[in-house]
């Protein structure tokens, strides 16, 4: 099936394309020949029961795992085999399912680590405090401050990240990822553990990130959240793509209903 069969709400420009992406862990087929296309400007949802391969997909795209076979193209260029930091610099940033902030650093420093991805002053320049290193340093501070402001947590900039509330940590993590100036932002369960009010806030935040020109691919379990936010949804089950399309269509898809209701009572191992 060519990936172009997915109706688009984006700009029509393909940003990320996975072709027959496959990952085996020993005998386990975590991902099996998955096609997925994210168009520039979309908010794209990746859903599926536990163990469907969603996080594996993220790990493959960000270079943390190497695919068994298949292709990953960012703006038409293969990024398979690149190291995670190279993928990030190429324009894909991510957050983690279980928040992975640098806990002992302040919120601001966390975001600055992300911003640093675009900086070039090396060890020698840092020691000599060259003009470039000083400029980059103050620019990084300002950029990080601006991102924290956009996330609505500028007041927490100098708080140690580990002491922040759960919801605020999620915001810092998104700000940190945005600091790398990504074209594509991967969000792994951005509303996990949030109450309805916080989830509503996150919906607004993600829309706002998209308005700023960043394309979004997100994993989420909360169906109401996904259906209300995403323009295109891809459904995985047992490592295979079982459906893709706009929310209304996917919701009615018998295979999707079966995957969710049929397996709902069964205890499945996590990834």
């Amino acid at each position: 099936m060519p990936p172009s069969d997915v109706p688009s709400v984006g700009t029509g420009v393909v940003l990320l394309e996975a072709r027959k992406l496959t990952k085996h862990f020993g005998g386990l087929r975590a991902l099996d020949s998955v096609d997925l296309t994210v168009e520039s400007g979309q908010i794209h949802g990746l859903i599926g029961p536990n163990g469907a391969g969603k996080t594996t997909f993220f790990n493959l795209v960000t270079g943390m795992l190497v695919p068994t076979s298949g292709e990953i193209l960012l703006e038409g260029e293969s990024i398979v085999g690149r190291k995670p930091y190279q993928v990030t610099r190429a324009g894909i940033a991510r957050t983690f399912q279980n928040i992975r902030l640098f806990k002992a650093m302040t919120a601001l420093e966390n975001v600055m680590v992300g911003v640093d991805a675009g900086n070039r002053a090396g060890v020698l320049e840092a020691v000599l405090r060259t003009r470039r290193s000083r400029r980059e340093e103050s620019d990084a501070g300002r950029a990080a401050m601006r991102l924290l402001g956009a996330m609505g947590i500028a007041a927490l900039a100098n708080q140690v990240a580990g002491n922040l509330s759960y919801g605020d940590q999620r915001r810092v993590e998104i700000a940190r990822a945005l600091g790398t100036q990504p074209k594509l932002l991967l969000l792994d369960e951005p509303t996990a553990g949030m109450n309805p009010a916080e989830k509503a806030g996150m919906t607004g935040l993600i829309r706002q990130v998209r308005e700023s020109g960043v394309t979004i691919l997100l994993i989420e379990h909360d169906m109401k959240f996904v259906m209300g936010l995403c323009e295109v949804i891809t459904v995985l089950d047992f490592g295979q793509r079982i459906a893709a399309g706009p929310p209304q269509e996917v919701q009615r898809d018998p295979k999707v209903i079966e995957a969710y209701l049929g397996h709902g009572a069964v205890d499945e191992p996590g990834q």
Partner: protein
Amino acid sequence: MNVTGPAASVGAWIRQHRGRAIVVVVAALLVLVLMPLRLSSYQQSVLVDMLQYALLALGLNVVVGFAGLLDLGYVAFYAIGNYAFAIVTAGTFSKALYFGNGTHLPPLPMWHDWMWLLLLVGLVAAMVAGVVLGAPTLRLRGDYLAIVTLGFGEIVRIAARNFDSITVGPRGITSIPHPELHLFGLHYSFGLDPRPYYYLLLVLCALMIGVVMRLNRSRIGRAWVAIREDELAAAAMGVPTVRMKLWAFAIGASTAGVAGVVNASRVNFVSPDGFTLLTSIFILSMVVLGGMGNVWGAIVGAAVIVVVPEVIRSAVPSFQQYRFLVFGAVLVAVMIFRPQGLIPSRRRAMELETADAPL
């Protein structure tokens, strides 16, 4: 802008009380510069030892404290610095070129005019060794890296023991000349007096403190802390983790190389017995005791571990026998009551706090 935490409060204090800050700095400098003049030769040499270990601890602090890489073979780089200076100046190098035909060639006069350049030779030799060891091994994590570096430390010592033609084996290299300075018409021979070494090491420590503090406040320092806290997340944020770890390793190694050059020129004798695992552990204890990731902690750690035993020894002569017993007990006590070290870094203390939470 945007320096945070204690650094910010110190910075703010300095801005508010510029006059007082200058007085404090000048007073501290005066004390440091004048101190040796009031002390006996023995006390002076203890101070020199302390500064030399402080320099070593500053270097190891970058590796262990900032980047979080447990290096148990740090002494190897110190050994390389020592041998670099010894081999080049004491003529064993030229002897080796003649395949040990017995004639001890006089040291090349060139080295005497340019001896201070040998600091660079030691620095580069140790740095190269650091990169050569680090490049393949820094992909390892935690315990594995510790074991590999432990092995490297032993390899360097055993190689020095057996590479007779260059290192003169277990007998060690003797008759290493003291440094001489010939700069812009200024001539100065270092000799046996500890004081010139004291000032040299003071300058080197000050330089290293400056380097480390600037790195710590730059994107390099942030990258190191990020790697230490969560390597995977750091990589996901665009930090080239292997390259940054390699830098930490190279900076630590080159510092040890410089300290080695100073040591060889001061004691005029280098033998493999000076570079055992125990020395690595000593330097590591200084970093841990003082407070990992804190520049001043490394210096306080060195001061405590070098000076305190000497003070007790002169008060209680029989102490020498129990030195390691007491040393071990003190370390255990510190780790129980103050695991973050005497002068903890804010981040390290924070990490210990959050480590209590389930992962």
